[in-house]
């Protein structure tokens, strides 16, 4: 087979680029599932929303404020979008998810699935389904970087780098700090944590806000690479759920590592047999479910 080192590496790098999105999104799902016991189906829609905050902030916010030359720049969007979406998440948790806590997980899943359909529907109504290009990519992130074995777009290097920092930073906070110990304890036994004087309901609200904030952050990172469209989230989230199933629901490090690896596997498959690249993750999911149903990093019940 004519597989040059360069072809393989370039696809693996592009795969890693997809992998970091899987990692950030499945990490958010894992954190939310751990503490709230909710499969957050609205995650993809909120990822899309993050990208739209960047897009609309860049080309609509100025005219709306009567200052046509104002653009919410990319760096600001990286902060603003997670805050906006995080605040929306807080609202969703406080007004809706909180009421479902007494019931079966299934209701949370149905509610968030419904929310995803509503948000996506509203955006499909007002925006171009085929997508809009985001023009706010900063000048410093344009061009290519010579990695030695290949030339790689500088923006994608940045996305991989910052995503790894965010993922492992989140892992560090959860696994190695006092704040994280509350979260881990709350994941194990929220009732007892309450009895120790900790405001668990507030912790749950903020955790949800943080989890969906991560999705919005990924959305902003995605905006200059993929076109910003109302369906970008639903396309992404199906793969991300497969990643979560493979990694094992609720494991922080598991979700990060699985996301990165599967992105690379997908990239590698493009070289070997391109038509299978869209399905290879689902094939792995089936095998994992048969062999180790709790997932690669999941704890057996």
């Amino acid at each position, binding site marked *: 087979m004519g597989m040059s080192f360069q072809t393989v590496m370039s696809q693996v790098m592009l795969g890693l680029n997809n992998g970091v999105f899987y990692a950030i999104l499945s990490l958010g799902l894992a954190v939310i599932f751990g503490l709230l016991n909710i499969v957050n189906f609205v995650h993809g829609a909120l990822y899309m929303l993050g990208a739209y905050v960047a897009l609309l902030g860049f080309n609509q916010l100025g005219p709306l404020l009567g200052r046509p030359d104002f653009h919410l720049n990319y760096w600001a969007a990286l902060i603003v979008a997670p805050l906006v979406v995080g605040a929306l998440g807080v609202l969703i948790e406080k007004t809706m998810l909180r009421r479902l806590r007494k019931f079966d997980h299934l209701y949370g899943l149905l509610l968030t699935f419904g929310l995803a359909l509503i948000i996506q529907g509203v955006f499909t109504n007002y925006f171009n389904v085929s997508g809009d290009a985001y023009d706010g990519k900063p000048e410093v992130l344009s061009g290519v970087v010579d990695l030695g074995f290949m030339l790689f777009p500088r923006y994608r290097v940045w996305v991989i780098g910052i995503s790894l920092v965010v993922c492992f930073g989140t892992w560090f906070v959860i696994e190695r700090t*006092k704040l994280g*110990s*509350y979260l*881990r*304890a709350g*994941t*194990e*036994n929220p*009732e*007892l*944590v*309450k*009895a*120790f*004087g*900790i*405001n*668990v*309901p507030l912790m749950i609200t903020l955790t949800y806000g943080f989890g969906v904030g991560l999705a919005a952050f990924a959305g902003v990172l995605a905006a200059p690479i993929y076109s910003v469209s109302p369906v970008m989230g639903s396309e992404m989230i199906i793969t991300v759920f497969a990643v979560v199933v493979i990694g094992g629901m609720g494991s922080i490090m598991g979700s990060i590592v699985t996301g990165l690896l599967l992105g690379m596997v997908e990239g590698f498959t493009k070289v070997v047999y391109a038509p299978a690249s869209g399905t290879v993750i689902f094939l792995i999911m089936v095998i994992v479910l048969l062999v180790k149903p709790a997932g690669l990093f999941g704890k057996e019940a």
Partner: protein
Amino acid sequence: MPEATPPEMLRISGLHAFYGESHILHGIDLVVGEGELVTLLGRNGAGRTTILKSIIGLVGSRTGSIQVRGVETIAMPTHKIAHLGLGYCPEERGIFSSLTVQENLMLPVAVGPGGLSVAEIFEMFPNLLERRGSMGTRLSGGEQQMLAMARILRTGASLLLLDEITEGLAPVIVQTLRQLMGQLKQRGFTIILVEQNFHFAADLADRHYVIDRGTIAEMITREQLPASTEKLNHYLGV
């Protein structure tokens, strides 16, 4: 009863507690004075654990009145009740497996003044010092029980709710726990102890409440205890 009644730490009146459809407690009335050690005795399922859980706010729903130092807590969320100075040690010990010994120890937030310092804790429980880097559930049953006790002594809690702390432990550890109870009583802690039988705390307890089918069947003072053993054995099904 002692002649000079100490100030009230806890007053429960007309307490009913429910888990979903099942009605567990049927009108509990009890009073615990500051510095007292009181036991709740009874068979499994009598409602002793539910009384403790009602005090800290971990039952499905509860009605009636529970006052901690005169503050009504029946409508308070659990984490606020804890801040009135309560420390809870659950029956299953509740050591978090994803936290180290040190993290388990530091988890509960301060709920009152005068908690034991970490140094004092490690002096009291030297085993925990050696094992503070291990994950919580790697400890032996006895060590887990010590940790469950230690972490609520750190918080400055003055009312301790202890659920079957001797269950399943070796006699030597039970002995250590009895000494610990004595020390805590001397330091002025108020303690409510759920036990299967009265032997563990016979010398230490000021009073024993016998719980039967969700009500208080009997209240026995330390003085009445020797004369009441037969009656107790009947209730406890020994």
